[in-house]
């Protein structure tokens, strides 16, 4: 099972975990990324390439399914205006092997950061607005998985 969500709407990690648990693998891992309020951030606007995003996310999921024995993958990424505390991204995996579930989860979030066409614009309490710069460490994190 591969489920991809690219959506403005909020999502519920508990509901997604329950879907993955129902696959019977015995091991479910997840990562949830949320907006932090650091430095007086008041809004994070997520922009994406609508024609491409879901395909890019599916390709990342399919790569994970080739590398690990997974029963299920859920990838959800929101776009639009978000505020501190809002969930941005969810990665969930189900497997009969706990290491496979956890490693695939780490792989998926690392790859999503470099292989899915999203951009973040931050707005702060003092009126400053800027686009988040890509981090070399994100490229390095994705590169450690090879291929």
């Amino acid at each position, binding site marked *: 099972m591969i489920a991809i969500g690219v959506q403005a709407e909020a999502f519920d990690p508990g509901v997604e975990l329950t879907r993955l648990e129902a696959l019977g693998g015995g091991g479910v891992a997840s990562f949830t*990324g949320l907006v932090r309020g650091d430095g007086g951030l008041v809004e994070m606007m997520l922009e994406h390439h609508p024609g491409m995003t879901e395909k890019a996310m599916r390709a990342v999921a399919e790569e994970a399914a080739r590398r690990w024995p997974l029963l299920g993958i859920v990838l959800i990424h929101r776009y639009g205006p978000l505020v501190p505390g809002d969930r941005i991204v969810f990665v969930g995996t189900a497997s009969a092997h706990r290491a496979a579930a956890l490693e695939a989860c780490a792989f998926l979030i690392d790859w999503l950061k470099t292989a899915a066409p999203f951009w973040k614009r931050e707005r702060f309490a003092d009126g400053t607005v800027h*686009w988040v710069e890509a981090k070399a460490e994100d490229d390095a994190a994705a590169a450690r998985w090879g291929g």
Partner: protein
Amino acid sequence: MAIEMLYFAWVREKIGVEGERVDPPATVATVTDLIDWLAARGGGHAEAFEDPARLRAAVDQHFAPLDTAIAGAREIAIFPPVTGG
């Protein structure tokens, strides 16, 4: 050969449009050529495309290096490095 251009993030903001249809001459062979050709228009294009090292591209909805040939491409997106996740 008409190409649908798409711009995202600060590239979109500097150019001032989300996209446009362009029809470059045959001498424009790669994404880099296309960027240079568009920058020559001046204004927002010149500003957005000032430093190609800060730009990335997708050709027909697949990430592609800037030296990718554009022959046959229908849609080309230009944007900063992605920052999702």
